[in-house]
């Protein structure tokens, strides 16, 4: 009896170890994102949407069983850098994704680059990586940071505003953002203010803004910063007096519920909207709401697409994760159905896609969400592709 059972155990061991050794059909994804603090609403949407995509693909990516290793970067560059090293060296991930904030992206990308680990961005896409520091191992499934701001700059210019006040957090994406806006807006800049990242009280800035008496205000405040700014904007009695514009980041479904009526009616620009009319987007929005009880944001749409992009690339290479060159080529093909409709890659691995004007509305079910109003750009690339030597 004893002999039989030990033989069985031994057989079990052997079976298990051969299985582990061969490890066929597994792909490891490092999900490094912001899950705590004022920026966490973005990271949670990215994580949830990525997991939803994997679930919709039957728990696999490109036919390989997907294991997702989740790490909170706490919106701190040093924490993100250490976590990236751990994901590369200890967990040996095949792909990484999830970083929300561009300062963290710039701090960690050299590590992924050195390890030749493909990083598929579901959000942060700074100008540096689109231009001079472009690398074969970075693909943006989102946008280039300037894009949404460019679209709004274009709209504000077309509407004839002449004296616009600009505000953004002081970090790489904040500077990219206001540069993008000014690329298309040619009027006078009534004020250009960069506040500390994750500042939560804007009373002092709002007083200065009121004193400058602009004819419109443009603010880039993602996550909790946006909630506080928009609420304080209304409390200061400025809503309805001065038109407020923003990129889709400021008025995004992850924070619209917390802003409540303060945000209703504001116009913003993005490459995606929950009401875009294509079958994959309808399925995505419905599945997301069913799974998590809230509407997906633009960040969620980007993460869903990032997962679908990885899926398509692995499928194209027949599951050969070690052939980095073939994998890069397969990613570049972007052979997947994006929830935003048109999507293809430029030579710097940043998207060429369409941008829309959206308006925040409250629907009959009491949900706060964006509605597509009009197209602004078609097949828009980015301003830095010329500086990229790839």
């Amino acid at each position, binding site marked *: 009896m004893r002999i039989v059972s030990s033989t069985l155990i031994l057989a079990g061991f052997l079976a298990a170890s051969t299985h582990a050794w061969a490890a066929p059909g597994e792909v490891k994804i490092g999900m490094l994102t912001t899950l705590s*603090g004022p920026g966490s609403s973005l990271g949670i949407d990215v994580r949830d949407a990525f997991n939803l995509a994997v679930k919709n693909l039957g728990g696999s990516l490109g036919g390989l069983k997907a294991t997702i290793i989740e790490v909170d970067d706490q919106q701190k560059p040093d924490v993100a850098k250490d976590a990236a090293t751990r994901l590369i060296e200890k967990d040996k991930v095949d792909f990484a994704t999830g970083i929300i904030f561009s300062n963290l992206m710039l701090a960690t990308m050299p590590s992924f680059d050195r390890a030749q680990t493909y990083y598929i961005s579901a959000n942060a896409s700074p100008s540096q990586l689109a231009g001079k520091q472009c690398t074969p191992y970075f693909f943006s499934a989102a946008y280039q940071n300037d894009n949404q701001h460019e679209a709004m700059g274009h709209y504000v210019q077309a509407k004839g505003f002449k004296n616009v006040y600009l505000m953004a957090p002081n970090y790489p994406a904040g500077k990219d953002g206001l540069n993008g806006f000014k690329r298309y807006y040619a009027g006078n800049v009534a004020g250009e203010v960069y506040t500390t990242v994750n500042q939560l009280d804007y*009373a002092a800035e709002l007083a200065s803004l009121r004193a400058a008496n602009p004819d419109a205000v443009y603010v880039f405040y993602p996550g909790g910063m946006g909630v506080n700014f928009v609420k304080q904007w209304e409390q200061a009695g400025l809503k309805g007096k001065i038109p407020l514009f923003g990129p889709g980041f400021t008025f995004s479904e992850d924070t619209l519920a917390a802003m409540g009526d303060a945000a209703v009616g504001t116009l913003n620009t993005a490459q995606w909207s929950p009401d875009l009319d294509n079958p994959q987007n309808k399925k995505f929005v419905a599945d997301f709401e069913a799974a998590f009880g809230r509407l997906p944001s633009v960040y969620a749409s980007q993460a869903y697409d990032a997962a679908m992009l990885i899926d398509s690339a692995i499928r194209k290479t027949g599951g050969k994760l070690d052939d980095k060159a073939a994998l890069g080529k397969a990613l570049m093909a972007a052979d997947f159905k994006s929830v935003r409709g048109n999507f293809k890659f430029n030579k710097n691995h940043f998207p060429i896609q369409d941008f829309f004007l959206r308006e925040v509305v409250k629907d009959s079910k009491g949900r706060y969400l964006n509605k597509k109003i009009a197209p602004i750009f078609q097949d828009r690339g980015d301003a830095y592709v010329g500086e990229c030597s790839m």
Partner: protein
Amino acid sequence: MIAQLFIEQGLNGLQLGITLFLMAAGLTLVFGIMDVIHLSHGSFYMLGAYLTATLGARFDSYLLGLALAIPLVALIGMVVEWIAIRRLYERDHLDQVLATFGLIMFFNEAVRMIWGAQPIFLSPPASLAGTVELLPGIFYPQFRLAILGTGLAVAALLGLMIRRTRLGMRLRAGASDRAMAGALGVNIDGLFTIVFGLGTGLAALAGGMAGTVLSVQVGMGESILILTFVVVVIGGIGSIKGALVGAILVGLVDTLARTMLPVALRSTLPASQADSVAASLSSTSVYVLMILVLAWRPKGLYGART
């Protein structure tokens, strides 16, 4: 236009000062009377904000939530004093720093487990959500004025209590000479528990009000704690009057530096650089103030202890 801006920024500074005062009043008493360096004071500010948010949502009334959160946090404070802080009175300051730093981590993790890591956004009551025109062209959010008014009223009540009541007399005696007060028959243990409860209750009031202006999140207490210590040191350890004057000074200097420095620097530097430099300079402004005050009066403005 410049005068309007100045008045509005002055009010913003006062409002920050009042929040700091509510924190500093408790801290300066604990520090001055009990001689305990209490780093976890910010945790009670955080608890006040979280309980106000939760209870306010439960009873559908922000004011009721705040009114319930204050005694609840004071009670938690007294229990913490009884369980943990009481053991630290005879220890040196390093032990106190280590133990109360541990309490910060305990409370942060506890809050993360109960409420999650995501911030909660708390709205002021609808009746106070609008703006008032104080002077022609000067608009100010009603709720911020309410914070200012509440803070000043609490300061007045606290001053009255310290000057006119028996408890206040004991507090003053304890602050100026703890050993002598004990020798003269003041129940020091009981007094300490009351002081701690009072301090944590005030922190809860500050947190519950600030939570509506900022957001309710894990670690919100630490960012205000540093400024609170600066206020206590500037005002003089153990002095409520010092805490009030120090808090308003710090609030005004911090807000005015934050708004005036970028304007001054932007004439010479591009906007994003000017704002970076101004942000670092203005965050040092309160410490410069502290150095100046301490150089002039080494025990703070109203330092009671000798």
